């Protein structure tokens, strides 16, 4: 089948890729599923599903303990996954800590770094566009350790307002934690130059890369940040496999996050010494199958190429913005510029509540997110209670965006908008 999509987006062969995702064949409400909610979680391709299955079917055993053959295979697979993920983000592997998700990774930094190693009166800088997972852990740490929090604002096009950055980076600021790509606005922040300014001021930089790592080439060596968090489930991997990368020398200085098995070197009833990094931060039995699946996800994404994925998404985003324009009476939040944002577009239709929009789209088997997107302070800043969000990935087509446009026409008709 030669669709318009493959003609307009030669960056990748979307029909061939779609065949890798079993769930995309399924029907909802009697119609072909149109999945436009990849910013929440992406669908999983067959090679990832097979890797998880194969791990349990052939090599399952607990890792880093036991001398039998399966234990050593499982350990090998787990450590290979660590190497693979490090290569995926162009970072040294000793800095990779496997955790459940971005949220857990940011909590680890807020707890073991900010709460433990910063002192009362120190300042941590965030922004108003953060996901709750890059807000609440810092609020908790601030309360416990007497830290101050300050926030970068956004401008009317949903970009970070950096006018006051140098002032905010001045003492007593010790750490800046920012989202790389907003899960609401799609805005991509220029982390590399912000990090350079922060480091010049002696401020460490943490990055919530949940939305950037899956969709574009992210190189740690290039960004030169100190902490980076992301989730495997947003990049074709299984749920439960998340990643923190941190500079190994910082991990050395940080006290453990959780205590238990695997993270220790020697335990007596009086005193315990810690395992080497990154194992010091991986207490208990890890999600080995998740790590193996994430390894397969890295291979899958790199077999397509992240610049091809970015190109494809740029085309889809441009089309999405055009279609929303054609629908009419639609308010779009964010840059509205496919070159300045990733494949995420938030909008409202007239004054229709986003959940009513979501329900009507659902009847056409179109899956979007409707709500506050775990970013209530950003909603308040935008002056809305909630938005509808369509987000795309490597498997979406232009004709799916057209279906969204048609269904938004139903919304306008039912609610008599315009």
């Amino acid at each position, binding site marked *: 089948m030669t669709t318009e999509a493959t003609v307009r987006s030669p960056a990748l062969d979307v029909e061939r890729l779609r065949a890798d995702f079993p769930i995309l064949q399924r*029907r*909802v*409400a*009697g*119609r072909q599923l149109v999945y436009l909610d990849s910013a929440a979680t992406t669908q999983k391709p067959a090679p990832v599903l097979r890797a998880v299955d194969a791990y349990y079917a052939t090599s399952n055993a607990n890792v880093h303990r036991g001398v039998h053959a399966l234990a050593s295979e499982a350990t090998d697979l787990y450590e290979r996954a660590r190497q693979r993920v490090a290569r995926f983000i162009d970072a040294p592997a000793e800095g990779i800590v496997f955790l459940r998700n971005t949220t857990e990774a940011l909590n680890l930094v807020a707890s073991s770094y900010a709460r433990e190693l910063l002192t009362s009166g120190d300042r941590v800088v965030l922004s108003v566009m953060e996901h709750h997972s890059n807000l609440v852990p810092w609020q908790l740490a601030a309360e416990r350790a007497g830290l101050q929090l300050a926030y970068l604002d956004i401008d009317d096009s949903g970009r970070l307002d950096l006018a006051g950055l140098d002032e905010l980076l001045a003492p007593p600021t010790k750490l800046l934690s920012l989202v790389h790509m907003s899960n609401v606005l799609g805005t991509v922040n220029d982390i590399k130059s912000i990090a350079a300014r922060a480091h010049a001021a002696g401020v460490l930089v943490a990055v919530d890369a949940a939305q950037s790592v899956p969709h574009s080439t992210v190189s740690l060596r290039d960004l030169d940040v100190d902490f980076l968090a992301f989730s495997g489930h947003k990049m074709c991997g299984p749920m439960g496999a998340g990643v923190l990368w941190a500079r190994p020398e910082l991990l050395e200085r940080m006290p453990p996050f959780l205590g238990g098995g695997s993270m220790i070197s020697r335990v007596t009833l009086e005193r315990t010494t810690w395992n080497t990094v990154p194992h010091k931060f991986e207490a208990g039995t890890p999600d080995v199958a998740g790590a193996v699946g994430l390894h397969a996800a890295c291979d899958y994404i790199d077999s397509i190429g992240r610049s091809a994925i970015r190109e494809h998404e740029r085309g889809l985003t441009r089309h999405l913005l055009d279609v929303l324009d054609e629908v009419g009476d639609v308010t779009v939040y964010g840059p509205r510029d496919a070159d300045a944002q990733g494949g995420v577009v938030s909008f409202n239709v007239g004054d*229709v*509540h*986003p*959940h*009513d929009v979501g*329900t*009507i789209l659902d*009847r*056409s088997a179109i899956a979007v997110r409707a*709500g*506050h997107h775990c970013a209530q302070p950003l909603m308040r800043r935008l002056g809305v*209670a*909630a938005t509808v969000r369509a987000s795309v990935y490597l498997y979406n087509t232009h004709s799916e965006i057209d279906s969204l446009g048609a*269904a938004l026409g*139903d919304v306008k008709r*039912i*609610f*008599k908008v315009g």
Partner: protein
Amino acid sequence: MDYDEIVAVGFTPVDDDLYREIILDHYRNPRHKQALPAADRTVAANNPLCGDEIDLMLQLDGEGIRAVAFEGRGCSISQASASMLCEAVTGMRIGDAEALAERFRAMLQGSSADPGDIGDLEALQGVRAYPVRVKCATLAWNALLEALHQDNAEEQRDST
């Protein structure tokens, strides 16, 4: 584990009877949406999923509901349901209002889809097909029951 039980396979027409005219009318032109300074009871109810907020205010009069009003914001289902509630229970005896609220909730959540004669409220029956939206429709009714029970609880406390 039986997947087939939870996987939605049926066909839903785009224009089913969820967004009936009367619901949209109550949403656009809500009745009794105002402050009620003489209220004896106010219950604030929230539905975090939709961000629906309803403050339900009741003025009681012995065994009866003398006046009822609401303020709030949210999706069409939550706001229309609150508006219809206010119309339905104004002037009702407390016991009858409780019974109506229970029948309404049973219509949306319970095993019995037939609520008997509930007048215009029957229009909200379409919500039954949308499990995630049932909370929107029942929000104001839960607030009503809470307000009425609060009253009972206090009376019981008074009498002991």
